[in-house]
Every structure is written in C-alpha cells, then in structure tokens.
C-alpha cells in the first residue's frame, strides 16, 4: 500500500515537474532548427570581448573607473562613402557596334520608328502603378534594365504600349503575314560641320526626357550622351519643325524660310 502510495506520489511529482517546465515555456512555436546545437552554441559563445554590442556587467566598485557613454559600436568612426554606381564624368566613347546593337534592339520593339514600343513581357492586369514602379525612374536589377519613360506621366500605359500575350495564351500562334515595312530609325542628326552639335533627328513629342535613352545610368549603349552633365539639350541640338508638327511646318523647308526682301542697294 505504502509502496503504491510512493509510486503514485512520485508520479504526481514527476507530472508536476514536467508540467512546471512546460508551463514556464512561452508556448510560442519555434522554427525548426532554432535550438540546434550549432546555433545555440554560437549564441552562448559570444563574449563582450569579440562583440561590441554586448556591454559587460560591472560591480558597483568598478563604476567609478568605468567610462560611460556610447559603446564602441555607437562611437563615430571616419568612414569612406561608397562609390556611386554611376559617375557622371566617366569618359563615354560610344562604339559603332554598341550603337548598332542598341538600334536593333530598339527597332525590334517597334513596328516603325515613332511607334510606341511594345512591352516585351506579359502584363497581368496590373495597374499603371506597377508599370511606374520600374519604368518611371528606371532601375537596374539582377542584370535587367527596364527602360525609363521618355515622356511625362500619362494614365493607361497599355493604351499605347501593346504587351505580350496574356499568360494563359502564350502558346497561341500569333504570327501574322504582312508586307508592312516600317520607317527605320534615323542613324544620326545633321551636322553643319565636323564637330558641330548634331540636330535632333526625331520628333520631341513623347520624348521630352532625353536622358531616357541618351544619358544617365539608363542610357542605351551607343546612344549615350558624351556629356550627360549638360542639362539643356536643345540649347545646342536643334529640333525639327516638321517632325515636331509645328504649325505650317510643311510650308517652310530650310531653303524656303520666309524672309524680308533683300536690301535694295543701288549700285554705282
């Protein structure tokens, strides 16, 4: 009887002890591996000496001799700023090969020069905001470089830019048989003489932001400006009245600009 009581009491005590330790746990499930020894060991083996974030405990007697204030990690240290990923003043030497490659890639996204480029990826019913996230200022990410918007903020991006087929229909044969041949991109603007700033060989409409293609970290290889620090492009590069659809532009060719009559000089 006594023996049974003893066994019973020992069990009660055992359950109580287990219950106590279970009870003092916070009940929060821990991710697998959290208590794996290597992690725990690493945690336990940290000492104030090799970890600036740990503040060693001191006795009351030591207080007077211990400097108080910012810990080591809070103390200022002379730092070198990281290099900017883009240096405005890097020497740019556009190569013909780069230019050719960029032009081809550009042309591949347009039915003709001046057409809004197609979107080379599917658009899954995302809003305009999703487009702006990558295309407003441009980003470089994982080797990808989304084009920068060359025009002002406009709503309804897909109004003008056709995307690739929606995901469920990507395997549908979308080939079309056409004889359409689009206007090619101009190779360069005109220069009045060697070294003169070239004219702008395309319309400025929807291309108000020259940097989208010609400068900054997002410029197209071969088309980048050699002087991206200059900010007023049309100061030196003349646009075309015809391409910009200026009123009555078609009436005036460069040879036929309306002028005052020549001076009537009497020859003697």
């Amino acid at each position: 009887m006594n023996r049974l009581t003893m066994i019973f009491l020992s069990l009660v005590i055992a359950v109580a002890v287990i219950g106590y330790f279970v009870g003092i746990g916070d009940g929060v499930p821990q991710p697998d591996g959290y208590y794996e020894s290597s992690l725990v060991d690493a945690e336990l083996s940290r000492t104030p000496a090799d970890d600036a974030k740990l503040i060693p405990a001191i006795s009351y007697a030591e207080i007077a001799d211990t400097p108080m204030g910012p810990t080591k990690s809070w103390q200022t240290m002379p730092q070198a700023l990281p290099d900017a990923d883009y240096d405005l003043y890097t020497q740019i030497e556009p190569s013909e090969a780069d230019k050719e490659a960029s032009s081809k890639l550009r042309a591949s996204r347009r039915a003709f020069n001046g057409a809004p480029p197609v979107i080379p990826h599917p658009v899954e019913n995302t809003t305009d905001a999703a487009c702006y996230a990558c295309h407003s200022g441009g980003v470089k990410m994982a080797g990808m470089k989304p084009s920068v918007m060359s025009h002002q903020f406009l709503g309804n991006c897909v109004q003008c830019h056709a995307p690739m087929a929606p995901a469920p229909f990507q395997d549908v044969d979308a080939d079309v048989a056409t004889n359409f041949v689009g206007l090619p991109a101009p190779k360069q603007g005109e220069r009045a003489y060697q070294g003169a700033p070239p004219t702008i060989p395309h319309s400025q409409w929807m291309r108000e932001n020259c940097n989208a293609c010609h400068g900054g970290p997002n410029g197209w290889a071969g088309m980048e400006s050699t002087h991206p620090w200059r900010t007023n492009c049309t100061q030196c590069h003349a646009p075309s009245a015809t391409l910009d659809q200026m009123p009555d532009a078609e009436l005036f060719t460069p040879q036929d600009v309306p002028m005052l009559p020549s001076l009537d000089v009497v020859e003697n």
Partner: protein
Amino acid sequence: MMDTKRRNFLKSAAMAAAGSMVAGNMSLPVVQADQGVSDLPDGDGLSWNKAPCRFCGTGCHVQVGVEDGRVVAIAGDKAADVNKGLLCVKGYHVGGILYGKDRLTQPLLRKDGRLTEIEWDEAIEIIAKRIFDSPETFAFYGSGQWTIPEGYAAQKFMKGGLSNNHIDPNARLCMASAVTGFLATYGVDEPAGCYQDLDECDVLILWGNNPAEMHPVLFSRVTDRRSRGETVRIIDIGTRRTRTTDAANDYLEMKPHGDVAISLGIMHLLIENDNYDKSFVEKHCNFRGDEADTPTLSGEPISEDEFRKRIAKYTPERVEELSGVPADEIRMLADLFADRDIRITSLWCMGMNQHTMGTAINSLVHGVHLLSGHFGRPGDAPTSLTGQPSACGTVREVGTLSHALPGGRVIANPEHREQCEGFWNVRDGSINEVPGYHTVEMFERFTKPTAEGGDITTMLVQVTNPGQTLPNLNALFNDKKGLEDKFLIVSDVYPTATTALADLILPAAMWVEKNGMFGNSERRTQQWFKMVDPPGEARDDCWMTIAIARKLFEMGHEGMKDKDGDFIFAVKDDDGQEIPIWEFDRYYDTNVDKHLFEEYRLFTRMKHKNLAPYEEYVKARGLRWPVVEQEDGSWRETRFRFSGFDDPFVEEGQEFDFYHSTSNDGRAQIWFHEYQPPPEVPDDEYPMWLCTGRVLEHWHTGTMTRRLAPLNRAMPTAYVEMHLEDAKAANIRQGEVVTIESRRGVCDLPVWIDGRGRPPRGTVFVPFFDESKLINNVTLEAYDPFSKQPDYKKCAVRVVKKSAAKVSS
C-alpha cells in the same frame, strides 16, 4: 507539327524580347517585317499628311508618313482637337492594315463551288444583270465604315435610282438605339455636347461602358486630368469589372437590365426629395409615356403628376431588387444629380444600345439629365459614343437606314420624299413609300429559300462582315450556304467569315488608298485625301456603286436617269463635258468625293445639321456641325447644341431651345418606361449569363487588327472570362478549352479566369473579334422594338467541359 515548331520559335522570340532588357546581343523578336521588299524606306522623301484614324468613332486624327508610295509611319496629330497628338495602340499601328499578305486584289467569282479570278468588267456586269432582272429583291448591306460619299452614293442609287429601300447598315447592330433615344427625347439625332464635356465634368458616369479599352483616347483624356491634379469622380455602372473599373471611384455592379431600374430610381428620388431642377423642367421639358397599344417614338404626353404617380413605385429598395445595386448607392447617385453645383457627364455605348429596351434606357438616361438640369453646360451632358468611324457621319446623317432619307428625313413622310426627289432631280414618286427591311429582317429573308418567302435574292455587302457580327448566325447567315438562287456579293479587303459564303468577291481599296470623309461621335465631319495606290485590282467602294449604276443606265434602267435624262451620278468638267468616272482609270480625273459631298450638303440644313463646303474640311482637322458661315466669310463650328451661348440656331435671348422638339414647343421630352425583364434569362438548363464585347487591341471583327503583329501578339485569341468560383465548381482550369452552349448554337473557347475583365459569379464574357471562334453562333437575335437593334449583351448559356460535351453529343 509545323505549328508547334513555329510556336516554339515565337515563344523563344518573345522570351528573348523579355530577356533582352539585359543590354547585349540577343536574337531579335520579329516585329519589323523585312520580307523581300527591295527598296526599304530610309526616311528620304518621307511626306506627312492628315487623315482620321480608320478604326473607332472617337475620330482621332493621325499623321500618315508616306514614302515611295507606301505608308511607313503613323504619328498622332498634334493639331487635332480630339486626340491632341495621342493615339491608342490600334491607331499607332493603323498603317499596317493596308499590308496584310492576303489582301484581296482581284474580283473572284464562285463557279461550281470554287473561286475563280475574273475581270472587273465581268463582275460589274454580273451584278448589274442580277439587279436589272429583279430590282425589288436586291438588298444593299452597308456600314458605319462607309465614307460619307460612299454612303451617299449607295443611298441615292438605291432609294432614288432603284426605288428600293432595302438598304441598311451594320450600324443597326451598333447604335440604332442611341438614334431612337435622341429622336424620342429631342426630336433630332446625335449628342448635344462634345468631348469638351470630358474636360469639364466633375463626375463621369459610365453606363455599361468600358472606354479604357474601347475609347481609350477619350478615357485617358479624363484620367490624365487627375495626373494634373484635378478631381474627377468616375462611377462605373456595369455587369463586370473592366479596366475602366480600375480607374473608377465607385463600381456599381448591376444585373442585366438593371440600368433601366437605376435610371428610374434616380428620377424617383429626385422627385420624392423635391430636389430636381424645377426651373429647367418648367421651361424646357415635357413628360411622355408609351401607353398606346402600338407604342411610337413620339409616345403620348403625360402630366407631371401622372409621371410622379407612375415612377413612385421605383423606390431605392425596389430598384435594388431589380438591379442588384444597393439602395444606398441609388441614393448616392440621386444626391449627385440633385447637386447643381457639379457637372455630370454620362457616357454609354453598346451596353445601353445593344439592349432589348435600348430606346427606353437611352431616353431614360437623357431624362435623368433633363430632370436634374444637368444638361447643356460644358461638362453637363448625356453623351453616347459610337464604335465605327462614320456611324454618325454616314449612317445617321446620310440616313443609310431602311426607313431613312438624307439629312434626318424619313421615308414615311411624303414631304421628305418629295424634297429628296427634288434634290436628286429624279422623277416624282421615285422613292418607294414603304420602308425597306432592317438588318435582321433583311438577312432572315436572304437566308430563307425564295419559295418560303425569302424575297431577297441578291445582296451586296460593302465594308462590313455580317458573317461574324450578326447575332444568332445559324439563323441569320449560315443558312445561306447551299441556297442556289441566292447570290451574295461581298466587297472587302481581306477574306472574312462573310466572303466565305460569297458568290462574288470584290477587292476594295481602303482608308488612305482612296479619298474619304468620316463623321465622328461628337458631330465632327473629317476629310482626307488618297495617299497611296490600292494593291492589284482593288478599287473604291464608291466607284463600284457608280459603275454598277452606270451599267444599269446603259442597260436602259429608267431609274438611273434623272429628269433631264442624265446619268444620276453625272459629273461634268468645266466645259460641261461628262467625265466618265465609271471607268476606274478616269475616276480620279476629278474629286468625286467633293462632287457628292457638295450635293449632299444641301440635304443637311432642314435639321440644322449644316455642313461647310468641302474645302473647309480640307483645311481643318474636322468641324463639328452645325457649321455656319459668319459675316466675315469664315465658318464657325458648334460645340454645344441647343445651348444659347453657343448654338447659332437657338433663338436670341433663350438659354436653351430644343428647336426640333417632337411637341413643337421647343421642349425636350422626359420619358417614363416601365422596367421589363430581359428576353432570355438563365434557368436550370442554361444557368449562366453571356455578355459579348470587344478588347483594346482588336477592332470589331479583327479583319484589320488581326493582321497587325504587335496587336495580334498582344491578344492572339478570343477567350471566355469566368469567375474563379464558377470555374472551380465545374472543375475548369485556366486556359482549358470549354464549349459555350445556348439554345441556338455553340462555340469553343479557352477559359481566362481572373482575366482582363472579371465577371461576377454566374456571368461569362466573350469578345467577338476572333473569326475562328464565332461567339455569335451562340447569341440571341431578340431586338429593341423601335430601333430593331439586337441585344448581344445578355442571353442564357451553359459552360460545358470539352470531355463532357463529347459524351453528350
């Protein structure tokens, strides 16, 4: 097999395009064709000229870049008030529509079931002979894509020349209910406002309308105001979520026909709360109801008390029951309309027009605006949009409908017939007093054997594709096959579902391959010149009509002579010599468009839709009628019709004047119509609603846009949009091909769950652009009693898994 290979190539091309965001050397996707054209364009000798876009009724102007006789580039026209230099994805690629490899270039005659190339002379003779032998069983089916001179020539040829009124356009399927709505309300067709309303409204209400895809230039004109810091509240009332909903502040999801209840509910609250515009109603409006046993467009006058009595039952709670829109939202709409300090514009298109209560709902929405006084100030406008470039210009104004005559005249009115005979200088009584067959009836009679009363035996179709767009094709079109004594002549630019059954195919010139004029949704008449030659033997539709008429003239048909014995389309040079415009190589010796337009212009004054001389349109990017000559000889267009501050025909000192009022007292009509349920509602057998419509990338039947690489690649196939839960319940997966079945026919389509549009449970949506997946085999041909426009927006269907469909068949 080859297909798989090509698909893989295309897929890798698309992936290369996606991957090529990494600058580097990549294989290039095929966008720019370079297929054996020897002299590629280089920008030398490029010339630019204006033209309205070929596609929708918005009426954007493009600048067309032409080099070496080919269109090579398109730019938005910055001088155009409609689009201010912007276009949509279709407009930017409109130049490519001329260059599909399968352009029709030679007349083709079906002999023993096979198509054989023939010469034009033979083709014209075959047609003329069939008409000569049986003029009264001939029908001419045209289009809102006819240019104004093309429609006018067809109209004069049929009604003036052949004394045959069986001429109707595809616009019957598109905006006939808008016409009857305007006529019933104002006594004269077409919107009073203009696109400036979009710039000035505080609230934009879209009644079953998705302009973000269908009229994108107009929609971004509104949403871009927000980018500039202005506030516009967009309220989308619809049966499914669309891209327009994404930009809307409020989305009110209604049941089909809910719009009727909603408009009645708003009017009820305005009266109940006594905050309608009493002074506007007192001065400018009457009330109307359709109580007669045979309802007419002018209806019966009713008193304001009677109107109040009838509308009393449309309480917000009752409207909620009928429309599914919560009562509080109805109150919200009524409160907006009660606020006279804000400007409200309503927009609608096919949602309200393709409706068996189309005339009623059009009239009711006008009524909401009139009752609340939201009319006639810039930004306060009930405005219907059109889907075709000249539905307004050619169909509504030239009147190429089976019951109409040019300039707002009708066949039923003897005076109108007499006036037209006078203008045309044809013998008295030339115009048949019995209206012709409207579209649905015309095709019913064409596809029915002659012995069974099918009294249309020869049909000429120009600039449209009824084999794809008619509702219930199995009843209205497909039966033509095998009917020996029926002869279908189709003029088109590419092979279509219609040419598939044609006995004679005529290759047509299109867009800037010919001179033309269009009239857009805001009363703007536009002009362009021919810029390039059509391919092969393709020729102008207007020339075809004139050549057929000339052949009949030569065969001795009396109707082709005017009172003086001259050919009805005679054009004389300065010396009085007739120019043989029926010979195609002489057709451009003169500007036939100009001659026809100047003749047509005389018709437009009766209804105060005055047009300016042709030369004024050459100078302008379109002018909005009425265009009236000023004292200094200049021509002034009109932005706001019936409004004293702008309309030259409003009596001096009047704020508003509805000068074509059906009640002859200068007042507009506020109509009451009882709500009626849709003609076919889902039941146990066919448990789902089917709605059909369009997508941004393709225009109508896709004949043009599906030949443009960037567009077809963006939207390569029609699909059925389904709610996720409906798909789950039927064990249907994304992309799986299912069968849509109705009582009338079937159509197989891939499923797009949570696609571009998101229908609610119990509704599916299918676009109709894909000629390889004809959803109109499934749709219903029930139509509005006044406008005869069919309802493509609602019928009952079931969605069947393919495997299950096979078991049952």
